[in-house]
C-alpha cells in the first residue's frame, strides 16, 4: 500500500503532465489507478486540494464510475460480458460455469485474492460472444474448454 506521501507525490507528477487539461479529475484518477491498482481513500484529500474541489466531490466521482476501485484488485481480473448480444450466444451459462470453476461469485474477489470476477456490459465484440477480458486481454467465443484453459493459465 502506498503511503500518503507517495500518493501526494504521484498526484503532483500526474497533474503536471495534465496541466493543460481542463476537467482533469478523470484523467488523474485513471493515472492513479494505473499506477497503484486502485484509488485509495487516503488519496482523496490530496486530490481535492490539488484540484480545488471538495472531498465530497472527489468521492462522488470515484464512487459514481464502475471502473474506479477503492481497494487493491485481485491478482487476476476476469471481466465477463453480461449484455444482450453475449446472452444470445449463451453468455449466462458461461458466466455460471466460470464462477463455478474459479470458485468466485460474479462481482466478487476470491478469498485468497488471486482472482476476481467482474461484470462488463459490452466489449463491442458482439458477433463472436460470449466475450471476456482476461487481465485486459480480449477473448471471444468462450466455451467450457476456454474456461478451463483460462483457469489453468492464471493458476486458479
Amino acid at each position, binding site marked *: 500500500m502506498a503511503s500518503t506521501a507517495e500518493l501526494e507525490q504521484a498526484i503532483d507528477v500526474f497533474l503536471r503532465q495534465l496541466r493543460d*487539461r*481542463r*476537467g*482533469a*479529475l*478523470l*484523467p488523474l*484518477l*485513471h493515472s492513479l489507478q494505473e499506477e497503484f491498482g486502485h484509488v485509495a481513500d487516503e488519496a482523496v484529500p490530496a486530490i481535492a486540494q490539488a*484540484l480545488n474541489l471538495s472531498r465530497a*466531490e472527489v468521492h*462522488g*466521482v470515484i464512487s*459514481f*464510475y*464502475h*471502473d*474506479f476501485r477503492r481497494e487493491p484488485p485481485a491478482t487476476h481480473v476476469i471481466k465477463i460480458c453480461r*449484455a*444482450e*448480444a*453475449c*446472452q*444470445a*450466444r449463451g453468455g449466462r451459462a458461461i458466466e455460471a460455469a466460470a464462477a463455478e470453476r474459479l470458485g468466485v461469485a460474479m462481482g466478487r474477489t476470491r478469498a485468497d485474492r488471486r482472482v476476481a470476477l467482474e461484470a*462488463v*456490459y*459490452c*466489449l*463491442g*465484440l*458482439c*458477433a*463472436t*460472444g460470449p*466475450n471476456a*477480458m482476461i487481465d*485486459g486481454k*480480449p*477473448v*471471444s*467465443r468462450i466455451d467450457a474448454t476456454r474456461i478451463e484453459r483460462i483457469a489453468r493459465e492464471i493458476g486458479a
Partner: protein
Amino acid sequence: MTRVYVSRDMASVALGADDVAEALAGAGAEVVRTGSRGLFRIEPLVEVETAEGLIGFGPVTAGEVAQVLDGTHPNALGNIDALPFFARQQRFTFARCGRIDPLNLDDYRAHGGWAGLETARAMTPQQAVDVVKASGLRGRGGAGFPTGIKWQTVLDAQADEKFIVCNADEGDSGTFADRMLMEGDPYCLIEGMAVAAHAVGASYGYIYVRSEYPFAIAALNEAIARSAAIVAPFRLEVRVGAGAYVCGEETALLDSIEGKRGQVRAKPPLPAIKGLFGKPTVINNVLSFGAVPFILANGAERYAEIGFGKSRGTMPIQLAGNVRNGGLFEIGFGITLGELVNEIGGGTESGRPVRAVQVGGPLGAYFPPSMFDMPFDYETFAQNGGLIGHAGITVFDDSVDMMAMARFAMEFCAVESCGKCTPCRIGSTRGVETIDRIRAGGRGQDAVERLPQMRNAPSQARGITQEIALLRDLCDTMKHGSLCALGGFTPYPVLSALDHFPEDFGAETIS
C-alpha cells in the same frame, strides 16, 4: 517477400489474430496490420497479395500459416470483395476500413483521405454547413437529429470559444461500428471533426471513448499525434470514460469530460447553445463525423441519393448475437429487417429458428419475425414502437426467454442509472420486482396490507394480469417522466417483449 494483411481489430485479436500475425512474420511474410473487413465468421482473416490480387483465407490459426502462404489452406475464400456479404454493401464511411494500415498517413491520403477537409476549408463555414444540411445526414448515435441543423445552431451562436465533441461511448450491446472505425480508420473520424471545427468556428475537440475500448484509445492517441499538423489549428484530445453507460447520453458525457459525475443535464439549454464548459458545442456520434469526409469530398447529392424516406445516405449496420454472418454491413437505408437477418445474416449461428431481434441496443425494442418486412428507416421503426438507435441488430434463437430479457432491461437500467431522476432510478428497480412477481404468478396481501387500519390497501391478491397492467403503467411513467433516453427508452424492450411475446409472461392475450 510475400505481403499479407491481418486485422488488428480488437475482435480479430480476441479470436487469435495476433498469434496468426506473429506466425506469419516468423514464416518470413511481410505483415501489414489493418482494421477488420467486418465479417467475423472468417476471422482471423489473412489476405495474401498475389499477381491475381488479394486472396483471402479464414478463419486461420497460427499453426496453419504455412498452408496460407503456399495457397493450400482449406479455408481459401478468393477475392474477399466478391463474397456476397461484401458485394452487396455500399461502403461510404467504411470504404477504407480493413484495407489500409489505419495509422499510415500515406495510405490514408492515397485512398481519398483529407479530400473532404480540403474541400471544406476552401469553403466558407456557412457553405460547409449547407453541404452537410443538403446531404440529409442525421445523427447516427440514435436520436436521428439532422446534423446540419445542429451545426448551424453552433455556427450562429456567439461565443469566445466553441467545442467539437465526439461521442465515442458506444455502450449499446450489439454495436461495434464506432469501435471498428476508430481502430480501422481513425483519421476518418479526425477529418470529420476537423471539418466540423472549420464549419462552426471551433478550435478544440474531445473524443470521449469508453474504457472498454483500449485498442481504439491507443489508435486514436497515435492518430491524433501523427495528424496534428494536418488538422491544425484544430487540436484534439481523447478522454477516457470509466465504465458508466449513461455517459453515452450527451449531457452526461459533457459533465464527465468536465471531471464530474456523469449525470444527465436537463435540456434546454441545448449543448449547441450551452454545452461543454458552458460553451456552444457540436456533439455528434463517431459515425456522424465519420460520414462527413465522404459528403464533403463527393458532394451532398452523392450521399443523399441513397436512402429511404427521410433517412438519407448509408448506415453501418451491425449484425450481432446469435447470427451466422455477424459483422458490419454498411448499406443505404430502406433494406428490410428480414433481408438483414436472414439473407445477409444467414439466420442464427445455432441453426435454430430466429425468435426475436433487438434493434438499437439495450434501449431498443424486440421484434418478432412477423415484423421482418419493416424497412430500415428512422420513422418506420418509431411508428412500430422501436428505434434504430445505433443500428445494432442482436439476433436471438427460439431458446430465448423474453420475460428474462425484459427483466434484464430493467436490471441494466437500475445498474446504469445516473440517479438524477426518479422514474429511472426507482422505476427500474420496481420494474425488476414487478417482473419477478409476474414470474411468481402474482402476489397476495403482505403483512402491512392486512393490518386493519390499512383501509385503502388492496383486499384481493394480485394475479399476473394485474401485475402486467402495473408494469405497463410503470413503463408509461418511465417513458414520459425520465430526463434522458436511459429511463425513457428502457420501456421499449420491456413493452415490445410484452406485446410481441405475451406467452413468455404467462399472459393469455395481448392486453
